[in-house]
């Protein structure tokens, strides 16, 4: 069954069973690797993408449900100013250890900053409720998101 939707601004069509998680369509059919498998149950956030601007766990999202929608993945982080600012902040602060959780966290953060340009730490932690990190990079991650938000606000001013 063919499923038509948009990914990172481009129209795509994927041939897959209806119930195939969006995660596998992105990784295997579209070759977009920055959305990652961590648990398959929506608990860890490594697979986080944005669908129509909202952060969702793509491992838990059947491909039929994104028909006609706008999907954004971490592969195109640089393509908008929020994503670019986040990436720059994470690199500047070296807010990465193994890096496996980071793309999913970047997407959760991107979704947050699009609606809340000045989040406090509690709001950021809430946005990362479904994102897990095992290496213990939490402190740097929170600081990098705050730094990106501050830089964006400065640019906009």
């Amino acid at each position, binding site marked *: 069954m063919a499923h038509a939707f948009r990914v990172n601004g481009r129209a795509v069509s994927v041939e897959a069973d209806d119930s195939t998680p969006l995660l596998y369509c992105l990784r295997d059919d579209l070759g977009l690797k920055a959305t990652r498998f961590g648990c398959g149950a929506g608990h860890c956030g490594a697979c986080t993408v944005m669908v129509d601007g909202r952060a969702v766990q793509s491992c838990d999202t059947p491909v039929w449900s994104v028909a006609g929608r706008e999907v954004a993945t971490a592969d195109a982080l640089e393509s908008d100013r929020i994503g670019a600012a986040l990436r720059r902040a994470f690199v500047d602060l070296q807010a990465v250890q*193994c890096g496996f959780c980071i793309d999913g966290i970047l997407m959760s953060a991107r979704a947050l900053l699009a609606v809340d340009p000045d989040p406090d730490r*509690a709001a950021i932690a809430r946005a990362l409720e479904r994102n897990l990190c095992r290496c213990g990079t939490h402190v740097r991650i929170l600081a990098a998101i705050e730094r990106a938000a501050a830089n964006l606000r400065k640019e906009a001013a």
Partner: protein
Amino acid sequence: MSAVPLPTSITANPRLSAWLAVRADNRITVHSGKVELGQGIVTAIAQIAADELGLSPAQLDIVVGDTRVSPDEWYTAGSQSIEVGGAAMRLVCAQARGLFADAAAARLGVPRAALSLADGVFRSADGRAASYADLAAGVNLDVPVAPTADAGPRGPSLMGAALPRRDIEGKLGGPGFLHDMVLPGLLHGRVVRGPDHGARLVELDLDALRALPGVAAVVRSGSYLCVLAEREHAAVKAQSAAQKHVRWAAGPARPAFGPIAQVLKALPAASETVHESGRPGGGGVALNASYSKPYVAHASIGTCVAVAHMEGQHLTLWSHTQGPHFLRAQVALALGMAVESVTVIHRDGAGCYGHNGADDVAFDAALAAVRTGRPVMVTWSREEELAASPCGSASVIDIDAALDAEGRVAKWHARIRSHTHIKRPGWGEGINLLGAWDMDPPVPVPSPKDMPLPAGGGHRNGIALYDFAHQKVDYHFVAESPLRVSALRGLGAFANGFAIESAMDELAAASGQDPVAFRLKHLDDARARAVIEAAARRAGWPPGAAGGEGRGRGIGFARYKNRSAYCAVVAEVEVAEKVRVIRVVAAVDAGHIVSPDGLANQVEGGVIQALSWTLKEAVRWDESGTRTRSWEDYPILGFDEVPVVEVELIDRPGEPGLGSGECAAGPTAAAVANAVFHAIGVRVRDLPLIPETIARAIEEQA
């Protein structure tokens, strides 16, 4: 020449040409056997190499973990990468620099001492130049590695330079991990496992398995079963659907779940006194306490993965193994192949905190590749990651101690009880690969054998560094374990650090002494004193500060393995219905620091990971097997639970670099437990410090 023995990496790889090569564009490629686990070590070793060779970092390329070209440097484990891998790299690069300096002096007709070096170019005072590339044809690197007393001019120092990690950019927004590898014709494999280790496959309907939607091949040997499909999701679905077409018989009964001390003390142990010094005294406060630490899972965010391709008679494995050369030998052995027919190439996986499933899944992929003739990627599920991977061994530590009339420790008898903390492929005679254990015919399995002191396994950091008038340490080694166990970051140092530092605190409290002062009273080691004082000062530790009303502060200290990095941790907690850590200050002395930010990142990470172990984690099992099989069953520290973390690094230029990746765990656990005591006057001696445990301790000590 110094009598310091050569790093083991050198004795294993004694030709200089194995370590580096100069390229025509004046870049130098160095080869290391230490691999990237997410800890930034490849960047640090490259930094050491560039520093020693007088190159700018951009001119230095590093290739790691490829059995075709990389030296065999044992495992990337045990906080040895700077101490041994870094030392080896420094030694070979110095030797190379010396050879090239001699050649430059000859080429330019000036004494070596008159040369300067920068960006890979040797220059004479009058500005004539000769680069590594210019000189390469005339310098023979196929010579034995030998320490060089004077390697000639050095380039500008890179030690302590803030160089960004080489691997970070590639891991953001793109195919930066082994999981992302693409090969034409790749099959996706998933292993179909029994309910528990040792379960036997007694019935299977091969036709039904082959007929599962999308299944392209089924691989079976004995109780080992793997399904493969062209489409990844079909393999995932087949992994669970397959259970309807197989029947398992349970493996041997395992020891029942219960409080750790009960579980461990019910099992037979082989006992040995591993340290004895001085004679026991007393006269003051006495302590008789038992501390416990449960089984802990690796719980990496990414699951283990491997890619394998059999081309002709040669098998290539891409793996995030910590020990590429060991994996190569073990897979060859398991599959009845010559070692020369197998190549292992390291690629980055998700975070690795010890012996996880990376080697096991490499076997899974290898067997499928050999049987199908297709390139194969096998990825573990979250369940396999949590339940089939080895865990960190549980420990129980009994401490029987006494002070003299002056409040100094006069007697200290520690009895440590634990399993092996290492069961890696290549450790012992036989094969340590999970899938191979299920094959028919069966493979020889090494019997459990722990790592001996001085590094130690269950007894790592079991000998307190303090100047005690008496110290006796016994290790009760329990060979049988209810769960599959092997190395987890820190090995026994986490449990032993928790126990020793909790006991120190209990003795201090019982004798009315400040915990910081009490520790300093027993330490002559200036570097140990320095980290304790630094952490206490930064944390604002006033002597004799009264705790209570739910808010408290505690300290923990250790020198990792009693010979690697020094670490002191102060934790501030708030205890209401659960323990909330508000702030952690860590002070670390890792010798001469290569990459301050890299080190700080590892220490912060070690602290936060240890907080998660301390506050939340314990693997649970019952007669049907491991029950903690998802993130819901096995929660780890979340973003809403992290404290402020401050890391203070004490740099020691000129001192050897000390392994620090594992140094924070024991001190962190103790700092938190000690802070809980300071906050609510209740001593908790069993990890994790979950609300039920705190509540029970409050009740018992009321």
